């Protein structure tokens, strides 16, 4: 048992049972405790009057509990007062002694706080009070569906009827746009009822504001049916609040929650704008109205909807469908704080938990810390809506209230996902003004929304919450700054300029082109990388000269050296071709294109050196590739298939560069490279040696496809003979190897040096 707050009488503690605790906290929520814990006297007065005790008794109670002395009702006084009320209702004298014992909870006419013990009494009393609050209940067209019935129905998701004056339930069924989803609350369940009487009880307070808890009688429309239809229930009217059609009743909220769940299973997550748009478009409202509704509901302006925002939007849509004009600004009852509060309950209900409990933990960090009382009271009132779950809710509420409500609640509630955005759940029963009153208090806690609204929205620059960050990340932000340079009008010019800049900047690593392709020929690259720097620089220099190659060159990652870039793209280019055709023959042609791109012969000496380096490297690679190819083929005894991929031969200026793709045998590469160097040397190219491994080379040489000896002298001839490669001494001619060779040959320009093939010969 929790000890109630110190009584006003001071000294003697009055113990409060769990039930009582829950009840009282709920009631004090109703009474709108402000941040300092004082309860609104008017509300307290109403509550007391609702207890149907004679006035002098009430005065006595006020006296005894110490509120009179203090001038206000603090939580302690309030709790004592409640106990005294219970005592008085039980017939005991109003004194502190009488409340030391266990007492039933005080009964309040039209009190919506459903406490289980009171439930039975209340339902009866609610009938009467309902008549009493006929005026109020009028607004609530709900048929007094027996709370029990409602509760039993379970599926609260039903929405209430249109807000329009309580036209009886009968109207609801027909009205409810069953088209939408059966909001017709009465119908379905009803079988019997259309009765939706509003639970007047809800309105203890409703008498004044007639903001009864619609909940009470909300006929849970066949939730499933409505739920399944993806349409929006148009008609769920806010039955309960004739005055305040904007308040979301618990059933409505539950319905919205279920709809939310149908879109986004994780209730704590967000619904993206586009998804929400499709969903809301089904409501057949005109787009401008939907746009306006969105503006009202997306409180944190992140382009996505949280559960609370979703409920708000849904609610507005429902209102609009029911004929209510859209407000210019968000009604107070739909403010984030409310929304969250309301949202919490539904969730609870749906999960058989108390809203409050769920709501409370949500806010653990802030709200709870600030207001234990309201939080606790939230739990109480909210249970009201979930009449059904009274016992559970009470239980949970008590539980939550008990200890560190926040933490426990957080643990218990599955809805902790809501936390960032949920405010403590408030009772739906509370009147709008109450809520409103509370809203400011809650604003600080509901930091994401109000803060977001109040301060200059950070927009994409910062996020107040994780969800916002998520949203920002998810939603399509304003287009990022174009990478284009500054040109004002003709972008093509800029691109050209960029191109030139880029080419020059290649050395520096600036690439205007799309990201580099994944390095494919890692094997070939590897040996090339270490020594490739010089060649790469050469290549870089050379690259600008190639209109075609630049693009390719830029693609690969810079760190690989520019040597790689050229290789890769070319390879790619060739590869499909080679694959398509017989590898043996394709190389000739694939090799052509690059060969065709003879760069202008305006290389400086330095560039030439670089080029030569690159050539050497490529030649080595080529040699390695060829060797590997031949070896593999030997093993496979297959006369076709180029196992290693295609080779591409670059020709730069006077040099031919052989690009090998997909070499997989590093040792071979090394040897091939050596081979290439040697061949280059042989051909008169000033190739720089990368690695010399004579031993390997020797072995490679045996396998390397011989290159025409006459290459240097008669390139043309070689080209013509491209397809006829002299067989290696110990190799039969294999298409793959041939291809390799061929790739070199065709590219050899008449005046160019010869590629590796000749080298092999030697």
């Amino acid at each position: 048992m929790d000890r109630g707050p110190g009584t006003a009488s001071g000294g003697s503690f009055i113990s409060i049972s769990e039930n009582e605790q829950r009840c009282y906290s709920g009631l004090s929520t109703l009474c709108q405790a402000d941040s300092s814990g004082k309860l609104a006297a008017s509300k307290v007065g109403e509550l007391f009057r609702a207890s149907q005790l004679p006035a002098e008794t009430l005065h006595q109670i006020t006296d005894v509990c110490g509120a009179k002395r203090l001038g206000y009702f603090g939580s302690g006084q309030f709790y004592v007062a409640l106990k005294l009320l219970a005592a008085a209702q039980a017939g005991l004298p109003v004194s502190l002694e009488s409340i030391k014992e266990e007492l039933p909870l005080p009964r309040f006419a039209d009190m919506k706080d459903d406490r289980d013990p009171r439930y039975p009494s209340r339902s009866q009393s609610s009938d009467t009070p309902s008549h009493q609050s006929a005026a109020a209940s009028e607004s609530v067209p709900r048929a007094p569906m027996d709370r029990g019935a409602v509760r039993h129905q379970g599926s609260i998701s039903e929405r209430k009827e249109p807000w329009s004056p309580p036209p009886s339930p009968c109207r609801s069924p027909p009205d409810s746009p069953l088209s939408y989803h059966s909001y017709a609350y009465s119908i379905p369940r009803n079988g019997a009822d259309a009765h939706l009487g509003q639970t007047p009880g809800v309105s203890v307070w409703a008498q004044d504001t007639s903001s009864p808890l619609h909940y009470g009688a909300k006929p849970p429309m066949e939730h499933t049916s409505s739920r399944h239809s993806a349409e929006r229930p148009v008609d769920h009217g806010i039955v309960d609040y004739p005055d305040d059609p904007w308040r979301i009743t618990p059933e409505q909220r539950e319905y919205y929650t279920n709809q939310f769940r149908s879109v986004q299973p994780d209730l704590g997550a967000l619904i993206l704008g586009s998804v929400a748009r499709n969903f809301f478009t089904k409501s057949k409202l005109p787009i401008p109205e939907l746009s306006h509704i969105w503006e009202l509901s997306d409180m944190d302006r992140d382009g996505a909807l949280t559960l609370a925002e979703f409920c708000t939007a849904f609610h507005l849509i429902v209102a609009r469908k029911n004929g209510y004009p859209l407000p210019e600004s968000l009604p107070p009852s739909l403010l984030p704080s409310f929304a969250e509060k309301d949202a919490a309950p539904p969730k609870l209900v749906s999960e058989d938990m108390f809203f409050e409990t769920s709501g409370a933990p949500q806010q653990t960090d802030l709200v709870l810390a600030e207001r234990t009382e309201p939080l606790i009271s939230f739990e109480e009132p909210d249970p009201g809506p979930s009449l059904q779950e009274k016992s559970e809710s009470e239980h949970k509420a008590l539980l939550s209230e008990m200890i560190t409500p926040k933490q426990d609640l957080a643990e218990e509630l599955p809805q902790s996902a809501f936390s960032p955005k949920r405010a403590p759940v408030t009772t739906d029963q509370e009147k709008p003004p109450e809520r409103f009153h509370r809203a400011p208090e809650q604003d600080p806690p509901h930091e994401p929304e109000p803060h977001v609204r109040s301060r200059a929205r950070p927009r994409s620059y910062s996020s107040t919450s994780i969800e916002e960050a998520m949203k920002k990340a998810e939603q399509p932000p304003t287009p990022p700054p174009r990478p284009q340079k500054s040109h004002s009008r003709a972008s093509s010019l800029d691109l050209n300029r960029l191109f030139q800049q880029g080419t020059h900047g290649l050395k520096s690593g600036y690439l205007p082109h799309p990201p580099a392709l994944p390095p494919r020929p890692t094997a070939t690259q590897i040996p090339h990388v270490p020594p490739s720097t010089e060649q790469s620089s050469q290549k870089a220099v050379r690259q600008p000269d190639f209109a075609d190659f630049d693009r390719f060159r830029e693609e690969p990652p810079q760190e690989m050296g520019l040597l790689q870039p050229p290789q890769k793209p070319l390879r790619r280019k060739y590869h499909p071709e080679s694959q398509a055709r017989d590898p043996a023959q394709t190389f000739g042609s694939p090799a052509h294109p690059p060969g065709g791109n003879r760069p202008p012969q305006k290389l400086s000496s330095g560039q030439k050196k670089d080029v030569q380096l690159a050539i050497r490297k490529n030649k080595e690679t080529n040699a390695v590739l060829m060797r590997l190819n031949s070896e593999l083929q030997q093993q496979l005894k297959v006369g076709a298939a180029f196992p290693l991929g295609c080779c591409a031969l670059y020709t730069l200026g006077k040099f031919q560069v052989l690009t090998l793709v997909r070499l997989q045998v590093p040792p071979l590469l090394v040897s091939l490279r050596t081979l290439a160097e040697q061949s280059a040397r042989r051909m008169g190219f000033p190739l720089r040696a990368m690695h010399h491994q004579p031993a390997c080379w020797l072995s490679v040489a045996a396998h390397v496809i011989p290159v025409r000896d006459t290459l240097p002298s008669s390139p043309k001839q070689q080209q013509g003979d491209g397809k006829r490669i002299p067989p290696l001494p110990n190799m039969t001619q294999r298409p793959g190897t041939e291809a390799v060779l061929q790739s070199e040959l065709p590219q050899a320009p008449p005046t160019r040096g010869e590629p590796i093939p000749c080298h092999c010969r030697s």
Partner: protein
Amino acid sequence: MAVCIAVVAKENYPLYIRSVPSENELKFHYTVHTSLDVVEEKVSAVGKVLVDQRELYLGLLYPTEDYKVYGYVTNSKVKFVIVVESSNTSLRDNEIRSMFRKLHNSFTDVMCNPFYNPGDLIQSKAFDSVVSSMMVQAC
């Protein structure tokens, strides 16, 4: 307080334009249209450096006898143009900047609305209210 506020899309067609009705609106439309050239010029001038360094607020585009025109361009090349009366000397540059900032925020809100298709006219009431708060109230 502005006399005319306009939002121009990247392709240089207006998304939103609102003027103080007391004056000839056509004149303002024309002014905004001609100011676009100045905006382009300023944007291209700044473009030599990377986009990031470009200032969104372009400042006074050009003054005329009757009024001054200020420009602001977003990273997506959406331009905001504010026309204020020359006689309104109390408006400082910071105020103009804050006006643009508000406009930008409000515009982003409109963009975030999934029901808004980029390129449509801006019909958001929230945006209207922000603009109204900045317009000269004299009308």
